[in-house]
């Protein structure tokens, strides 16, 4: 969507209201920072409250990681794309899975028809991971695993494939998305009810802290909540309340806050007004540090550091004049780097039509190289600090986020707010209001409701879905099933069921089942049998 609502007289701007409801003044002066304290509110990078970034030298010591979302059809194609991106300077992988995999269904499931390998890689068994990660140095390249409801299974597979290829579990770094509450708000890839879903996340946090300590077991996604229609303040406040729900659950297990909270990361969205987004990220970093310190009395410095992936969002892109999205992407990348993010990615310009082609994915990647190598975005830390406007807006955003968090807590916290449909209703309503504002010309989107030009759709090169993917995938699944020991599969699944019923941590049992080449569908069926399924609350 567009950045802000404008009231104009002729070309003169009379009033600006940001999406978050904040009025922007025409001039900011020291008057606006009367209550602002250099030490308390800004400080140095790498020091509390981390407004300027979580590392003392930020991009001087290490550039941001670019992690374009990729994964196509078969594991073999995915492997090729991974190698292509790494060869072009990408430093981390971000694995896309197809919908059946994300829903815990095998490729031969009737519900999977037409979707196998369509929006990402199809995974049925460990064999698929063996193909996808072949020849990739998992001790050097970290992997984001974009999967949630069955992230526990995806993580178990990652462990198994790393072991198989001889990498040290203490050195590999996976970032499963593993944020189920946001799936229930937007994106929709949920399976189990709220309670057991949070329990599974607790299992992965607890298990990885012991077995794969470099894992970031949860990536809390404000991103999808904003893509679903939330404004920037809602994006951060809902993400924080989701994180708090997971943290409180893990604390109930008796883990120490400093043992795990530093490994919870955030995946956030970039589109809309440039300064509002930059200040959103600065405010989020400061408020997170304050929240973890005040609420949980965390002592370790790392616990207070807000780690984020800021991604240029698809919701900001337009189907009209798709090349304009290359320009938007460049601004989103600029926002990301001015915000002090650790990791970034961009939706590619053709994503309003299809998943990215190699060419469009490469443009996104090069956008970041241009910022680093030509534009000087690595030169100095948090260059906007001290600007009257930026600091005043950062403080205002923080205050608004606090208010929205309080609202969620008053209705009983995020688990309840999602189970009852409160958040879904807020977000859907907001999405509708935004679309109306665009329709009525109150929010401007270039090429959509202003400066429209006639165009020809054929100019965009599209990624075509290949239906042979299904045959190839089902063939491999059959082969694996024929080769594996069915008695070992049966035993590991039985153990998994007993552990699930007993409320034990399921991770070690999933790893055993994975190593026996049990399918995702088989393991999910066991969990579903015990946990049941999520029922969507009605929001209309």
């Amino acid at each position, binding site marked *: 969507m567009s950045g802000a609502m404008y009231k104009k007289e002729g070309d003169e701007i009379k009033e600006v209201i940001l999406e978050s409801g904040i009025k922007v003044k025409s001039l900011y002066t020291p008057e606006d920072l009367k209550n602002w304290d250099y030490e308390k509110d800004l400080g140095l990078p790498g020091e509390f409250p981390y407004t300027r970034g979580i590392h003392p030298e930020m991009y001087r010591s290490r550039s941001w990681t670019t992690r374009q979302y990729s994964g196509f059809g078969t594991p073999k194609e995915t492997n090729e794309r991974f190698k292509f991106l790494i060869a072009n300077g990408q430093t981390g992988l971000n694995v896309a899975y197809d919908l059946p995999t994300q829903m815990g269904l095998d490729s031969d499931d009737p519900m999977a028809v037409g979707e196998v390998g369509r929006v990402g890689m199809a995974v049925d068994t460990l064999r698929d991971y063996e193909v996808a990660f072949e020849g990739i140095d998992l001790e050097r390249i970290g992997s984001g695993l974009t999967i949630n409801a069955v992230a526990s299974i995806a993580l178990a597979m990652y462990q198994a494939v790393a072991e198989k290829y001889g990498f040290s579990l203490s050195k590999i770094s996976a970032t499963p998305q593993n944020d189920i509450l946001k799936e229930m708000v937007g994106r929709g890839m949920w399976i189990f009810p709220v309670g057991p879903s949070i329990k599974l996340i607790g299992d992965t946090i607890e298990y990885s802290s012991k077995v794969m300590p470099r894992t970031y077991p949860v990536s809390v996604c404000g991103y999808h909540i904003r893509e679903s229609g939330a404004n920037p303040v809602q994006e951060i406040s809902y993400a924080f309340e989701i994180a708090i729900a997971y943290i409180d659950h893990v604390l109930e297990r008796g883990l120490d806050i400093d043992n795990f909270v530093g490994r919870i990361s955030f995946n956030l969205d970039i589109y809309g007004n440039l300064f509002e987004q930059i200040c959103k990220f600065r405010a989020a970093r400061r408020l997170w540090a304050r929240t973890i310190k005040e609420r949980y009395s965390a002592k370790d410095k790392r616990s207070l550091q807000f780690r984020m992936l800021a991604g240029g969002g698809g919701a900001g892109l337009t189907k009209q004049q798709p090349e304009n999205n290359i320009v938007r992407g460049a601004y989103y990348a600029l926002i990301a780097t001015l915000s002090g993010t650790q990791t970034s990615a961009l939706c590619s310009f053709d994503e309003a039509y299809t998943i990215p082609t190699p060419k469009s994915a490469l443009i996104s990647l090069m956008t970041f190289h241009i910022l680093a190598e030509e534009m000087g975005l690595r030169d100095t830390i948090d260059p906007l600090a001290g600007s009257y406007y930026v600091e005043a807006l950062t403080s205002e955003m923080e205050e608004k986020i606090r208010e929205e968090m309080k609202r969620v807590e008053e209705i009983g916290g995020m688990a309840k707010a999602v189970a009852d449909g409160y958040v879904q209703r807020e977000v859907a309503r907001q999405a509708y209001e935004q679309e109306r504002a665009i*329709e009525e010309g109150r929010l401007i989107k270039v090429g959509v409701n202003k400066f429209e030009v006639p165009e020809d759709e054929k100019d965009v090169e599209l990624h075509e879905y290949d239906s042979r993917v299904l045959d190839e995938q089902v063939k491999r699944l059959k082969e694996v099933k024929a080769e594996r020991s069915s008695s070992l599969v049966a035993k590991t699944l039985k153990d998994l069921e007993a552990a699930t019923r007993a409320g034990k941590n399921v991770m070690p049992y999933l790893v055993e089942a994975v190593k026996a080449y049990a399918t995702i569908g088989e393991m999910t069926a066991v969990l579903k049998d015990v946990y049941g399924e999520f029922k969507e609350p009605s929001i209309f």
Partner: protein
Amino acid sequence: MRVMVAKPGLDGHDRGAKVVAYLLKDAGMDVIYTGLHKSVDQIVEMAIQEDVDVIGLSVMTGGHLPIMEKLMQKLREKKVDDILVTVGGVISRPDVLKLKELGASAVFPGGTKFSEIITFFKEEAPKLCKAI
């Protein structure tokens, strides 16, 4: 006019479906939303049970052609000939024509104006309903 906004298959992107549901509701229609992850069989069952005039399919993954084919086949099997079908989602221009050939009364690719959707449901759909 009674409209059922339907999310077939595994696709979980329901922003568009919910926005259109609000839009039609505000325009005075009777709107039902199926929720996510429904099979084509479930959608047809629900449509018959709820006695709707229109099924509005929302597909964001690109899988609209096989889904539409299956839905129309199911409607024929059930001898349903008084329900219109519309499709919205990530749909290329050539596919708009293919969907219409398969029997879609209207197709709304991403970026379709609200006014166009409302015009269809308020003016064209009642005529089409009367004709059948």
